[in-house]
């Protein structure tokens, strides 16, 4: 019953996870929806990659694509996913079953629905231990208790005998984390792990994930819509928009010298404590494009205050920035002469080429003197 991938296929030298040109398209009656469109990245052992984007930008589909958790019908996934150097993109469900658990695990967004309401918490944790690691019952139970303790659940010995509805949302999410960590995965996907939780417990859960990750030298993909969540926690951050990575850099570089106007807009939309009361919250005008029918040129152009005629015609390619590992896709990047000129031109005429005059008035980026 030892369920392990043949050791020879794996290589310790290879990066833990390499994603190359991954695309996930859904066939719908309205046409092909490009939920993930040509995404590439590499994740080394023990590192955290934050994937940031607003709703519908494809970040959840991306993590599910890598995990192989897509619906069975009307999906087309192309590209390669290499796990420890082994191509797992063509793995069947049965083969993936050996990867899930001890190699990769996932924490879901809503702890209210990701626990089985009629199964005791202890059983939900021991299930995978007994199944993957062939652990005897007593030993698995002991491990379940110590796992619950390690995720900060008080009186773990009592909790294992309780049902999910007896716990609060934050406690449930801790249980979900304990379940995901049970088999000691090397790669953990956390899909908006704090979105369904009260703000007061969000930080606790994130700190817990952080601590567990460091302790286990586990790689983590942290998916969120909140740049504030990944700030200070992720080593690298990838910003996704309309199924594509539009900017990727180390966390430090990204916050210090972002190039993509979308990243800038995301950052501005985080309310700050020093704002005067009743300050209007900054938001990004418009909504993400219809992925079944994406606009010509840059996907973000219709909402971008830097947009020029060229953005509506020509899709920007990912280009390297000044710092290592920094890539972005923009014709008029923030913080460059071209970008400043573009913004000045738009401010002067009061609208961008993508907008009608009457539609939205464009605003100055907060705190920038352009």
């Amino acid at each position, binding site marked *: 019953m030892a369920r392990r991938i043949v050791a020879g296929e794996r290589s310790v030298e290879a990066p833990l996870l390499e994603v190359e040109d991954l695309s996930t398209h859904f066939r719908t009656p309205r046409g092909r929806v490009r939920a993930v469109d040509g995404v590439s990245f590499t994740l080394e052992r023990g590192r955290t990659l934050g994937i940031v984007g607003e709703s519908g930008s494809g970040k959840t589909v991306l993590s599910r694509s890598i995990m192989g958790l897509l619906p069975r019908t009307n999906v087309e996934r192309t590209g390669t996913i290499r796990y420890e150097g082994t191509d797992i993109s063509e793995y069947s469900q049965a083969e993936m079953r050996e990867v*899930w658990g001890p190699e990769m695990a996932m924490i879901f967004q809503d702890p209210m629905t990701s626990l089985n309401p009629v199964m005791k918490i202890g059983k939900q944790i021991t299930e995978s231990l007994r199944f993957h690691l062939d652990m005897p019952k007593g030993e698995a139970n002991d491990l379940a208790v110590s796992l619950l303790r390690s995720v900060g659940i008080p009186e773990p010995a009592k909790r294992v005998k309780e049902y999910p509805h007896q716990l609060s949302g934050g406690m449930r999410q801790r249980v979900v984390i304990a379940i995901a960590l049970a088999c000691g995965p090397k790669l953990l996907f956390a899909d908006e792990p704090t979105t369904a939780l009260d703000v007061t417990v969000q930080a606790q859960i994130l700190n817990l994930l952080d601590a567990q990750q460091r302790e286990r030298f586990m790689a983590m993909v942290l998916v969120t819509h909140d740049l504030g969540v990944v700030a200070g926690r992720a080593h690298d951050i990838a910003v996704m928009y309309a199924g594509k990575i539009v900017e990727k850099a180390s966390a430090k570089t990204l916050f210090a010298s972002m190039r993509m106007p979308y990243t800038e807009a995301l950052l501005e939309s985080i309310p700050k404590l020093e704002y005067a009361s009743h300050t209007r919250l900054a938001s990004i005008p418009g909504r993400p494009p219809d992925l079944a029918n994406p606009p010509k040129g840059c996907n973000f152009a219709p909402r971008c205050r830097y947009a020029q005629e060229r953005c509506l015609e020509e899709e920007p390619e990912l280009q390297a920035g000044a710092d290592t590992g920094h890539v972005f896709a923009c014709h008029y990047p923030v913080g460059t002469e071209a970008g400043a000129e573009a913004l000045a031109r738009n401010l002067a005429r009061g609208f961008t080429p993508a907008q009608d005059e009457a539609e939205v008035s464009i605003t100055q980026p907060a705190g920038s003197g352009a």
Partner: protein
Amino acid sequence: MSELLPDHREDQTVGIPEAAGASPGETTAKAADDGRSRKRRLGIGFWLSTVWLVIVFGLTMLAPYLPFVDEPGAFPDFSVDPAAGPSGSHWFGVNNNGDDIFSQVVNGGRTSLLIAFAVVILGFVSGGIVGMVAGFFRGRTDRVISAIVDILLAFPALVLALAMIAIFASDGSTVRPSMPVVIGALSILSVAPLARITRGITLAFAEREFVTAARTLGASNIRILRKEILPNVIPPMAVFSLTVIAVVIVAEGALAFLGLSVGAPNQTWGKLINDGRPRLETSPHITFFPAGVMFLTILALNYIGDILQSKFTVREGAL
């Protein structure tokens, strides 16, 4: 007003004749029930129905061991006029053959309930498996199963049952169905609805995140069905089954009334009702007692089923 209040309450307690006359432990049971009903808010009707069902099931299932219940035709008592009605020695009176009707009702209930339970268990298991498979795997499997279930549901069930009995239990001139044939014919009534309802519940649960979560921990489909979905599907199925039991009891009664249910020496409630029909004008109690017991049993089953169903929906929402 303050004087009216106790009277009014008194009225309510004696206002339920069947339950009041049914058991000597009734008053204490009711007092205890009252406390619980306030706590869990299931209502007095729920507990009265439960008490009634416990009495009916207890008596019918224990019938062979009860001294006051005779086998049909064992001790015919011709000294009593069938038209005389209930008396101290024959609680429900006697019928034309001199049989004690109370014993008949108890023995009839035994067969009626056995058939109903067998039919529902058959439906629970086969309908449950089929429904879970359809709801979980979806796609072509689901389309085929759903089509078959829809066809079964489109038939008038009783007509289909009659046809099946006519085919499987006829020797050319007479129809003498055996217990398995009746159970098989009536199982149309339970398999199709239970399959459909299980499919619906499974569809909903298969979409839930904890199923995906189990999958990401390496659980196989069979394992997910068994460990994750089955425990969630069983409670609502069981509640629905209560209503199905009631439907099956009625259907069996209808078959028996037409003379197409299990043959002698088995009695069923439907047969007893049919037996009393020619004498309806002179001795209505021969029909009334089995019909009344059957009516109350079905009412109780439906009532409990309804209440539990509403409780389950509430609890699901709170999760």
